């Protein structure tokens, strides 16, 4: 080990394992078991080369190979019903720049769990968990993002055939951005305006098959594609989707909360916003998950700031003194401490809050299932503000970590550019930050 780093570890006044186990909520040993199993599989579960050296196509192919390897090994190494173990395995093997099962795990599966009635859950959840299909979640449209009421995709009920007819009425109605929608997913949770008996009841979730199970060709009445390169997540085929009178059975409307009877009669949900619980689940997981990316960036920056030496604090060092004593560790400059240690403090503040919000989410979901939705407004309001504030703090923090590594921080060798471009997306997806703050403000004004 580099002596400059080794001597730092001797100074510690506490046992890192104890803090690590607290940070990972008692799961540190479990994490170590998972990572050593993965590393023992060698090349089968490792990227061919650092992904930053691959073209987008090469990255997509390698991450598809790794996803299949992950699916094969998953049950041997993790509890597939534990989302945090699924995410950890997925990030260990496939990285964080996008992989076929990423949205399947973080968006589609929670949306199905929260919106399927018992019969629908019985039919589809086993297939999702066994990865017999690849699913994603399509809500955002080319011209409509955070204002859900303005979504244009329609699902019109036809009582004569007991089917919903899906349509993309305008260019701005095109579903745009959903991860893995372009080439990977063959099923999708679609949020569309529900029309029945001549009346519109607003956005509702529908379960839609997009591609032929055997050939993976897109089905007639459906147009799919990749939206092209973007700031980060290069191995994610963020896609677009258009419907042209595409028909689905009535029972492909997800009916845990709202329902449409064969006659077309609409049965409203218990609470108007209950359909958004999967969005809230994603936000609560996002806060904790992204604190981990900030932890990775600050780990890189603090370690390198002890390896990197530069200049002298006490001027007048002779060449000989510099040769022997060496230049000063960058981390001994007060400015570098002021740049990095508050970022480290933010990691803990955000992670602890993410854990609290996640517990609050499961309380709310538990209550909704028992028929009580009163906590929903609190979680919705707080979750929006937290998503905005923490994504800003995390993105700014990772940028500080990059800058603190000097020129090498700008190189992909640091790993920080990938972290930054991936996290920067969170300033916008899952709700544009300014709109999120205004959502929190609305309930504050009521209070």
């Amino acid at each position: 080990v580099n002596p400059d780093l080794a001597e730092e570890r001797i100074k510690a006044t506490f046992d890192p394992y104890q803090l690590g186990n607290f940070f990972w909520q008692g799961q540190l040993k479990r994490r170590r078991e998972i990572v050593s199993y993965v590393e023992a599989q060698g090349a089968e579960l490792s990227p061919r080369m650092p992904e930053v050296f691959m073209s987008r196509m090469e990255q997509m192919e390698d991450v598809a190979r790794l996803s299949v390897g992950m699916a094969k090994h998953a049950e041997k190494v993790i509890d597939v019903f534990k989302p945090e173990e699924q995410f950890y395995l997925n990030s260990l093997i496939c990285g964080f720049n996008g992989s076929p099962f990423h949205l399947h795990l973080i968006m589609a599966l929670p949306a199905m769990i929260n919106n399927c009635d018992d019969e629908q859950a019985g039919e589809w959840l086993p297939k999702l968990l066994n990865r017999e299909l690849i699913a994603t979640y399509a809500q955002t449209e080319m011209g409509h993002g955070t204002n859900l009421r303005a979504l244009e995709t329609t699902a019109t009920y036809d009582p004569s055939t007991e089917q919903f007819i899906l349509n993309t009425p305008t260019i701005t109605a095109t579903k745009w951005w959903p991860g893995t929608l372009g080439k990977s997913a063959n099923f999708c949770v679609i949020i569309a305006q529900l029309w029945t008996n001549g009346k519109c009841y607003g956005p509702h979730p529908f379960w839609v098959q997009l591609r032929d199970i055997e050939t993976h060709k897109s089905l007639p009445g459906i147009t799919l594609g990749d939206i092209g390169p973007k700031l980060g997540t290069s191995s994610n085929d963020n896609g677009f989707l258009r419907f042209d009178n595409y028909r689905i059975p009535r029972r492909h409307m997800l009916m845990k909360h709202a329902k449409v009877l064969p006659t077309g009669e609409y049965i409203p949900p218990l609470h108007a916003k209950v359909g958004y619980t999967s969005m809230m689940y994603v936000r609560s997981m996002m806060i904790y998950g992204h604190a981990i990316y900030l932890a990775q960036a600050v780990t890189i920056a603090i370690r390198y700031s002890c390896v990197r030496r530069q200049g002298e604090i006490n001027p007048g060092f002779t060449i000989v003194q510099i040769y022997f004593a060496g230049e000063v560790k960058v981390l001994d400059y007060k400015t570098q401490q002021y740049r990095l240690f508050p970022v480290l403090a933010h990691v803990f503040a955000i992670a602890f809050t993410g854990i609290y919000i996640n517990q609050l989410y499961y309380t709310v979901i538990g209550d909704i299932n028992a028929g009580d939705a009163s906590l929903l407004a609190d979680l919705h309001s707080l979750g929006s503000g937290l998503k905005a504030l923490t994504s800003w703090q995390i993105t700014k923090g990772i940028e500080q970590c990059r800058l603190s590594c000097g020129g090498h921080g700008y190189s992909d060798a640091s790993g920080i550019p990938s972290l930054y471009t991936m996290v920067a997306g969170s300033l916008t997806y899952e709700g544009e930050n300014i709109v999120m703050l205004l959502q929190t403000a609305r309930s504050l004004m009521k209070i």
Partner: protein
Amino acid sequence: AAECIYVTDNIEKIKENEFKMQNAISGYIYRKPNNFSQINQNSNVFDYLEAFEHNSRRLILSSFDYIQKLKKLGKTAEEAWNEAGVQLCQASKAHTQTFLVRTFIGTIPKIEDFAVKSVMEDILWLYLSYELVHSAVGLLEEGFLSSQQMDIIRKKMFDSLEKIRPNSVALVDSFDFTDRELRSVLGRKDGKVYENLLEWASNSPLNEYDVLPFHEKYLGSAMRE
């Protein structure tokens, strides 16, 4: 904001407010604020929490007052809401920051290991002082905080940096990231950065060639012309 009437002799109202003060997220808005902060060299974390609560309460109520004033000037509720958009965002940010602070404070007592709790208290104090230094303008403006108190907070921040320095590598080691997860030559656990930087660069597809295939076609021939 609409319900926060601090001075009232209406018993029903007082009882109702007391109940609402229990809310872990927004109860503080109902509490009648002190005029001055108690922060001094021997403050505990709750004196700092009070400053965050005072700041977000002040921004929430002033946004609310601003909207009421705009309505009295004839603006519709939607126009007033849009006009006050920036203040509303600042109020939301401050309210959310207060929640982050309260949750962090509430987490420390859950740590059983004494040595870990001690280093995490250093981190907490850095977080509180750093964030307060960065959000104190309004508190100074209103006189809730004095400049002497700001000096105390700033000193607390720099003292915390000093205390954390010896533990900084162990703190990041405790996240227990493998080199596989970090995907970083700079962040390697063994700190062997410079030797591995050269090896990492050898992965670049460009390095398969000494002379790039198109060199002669463009630059090579152009230089000889």
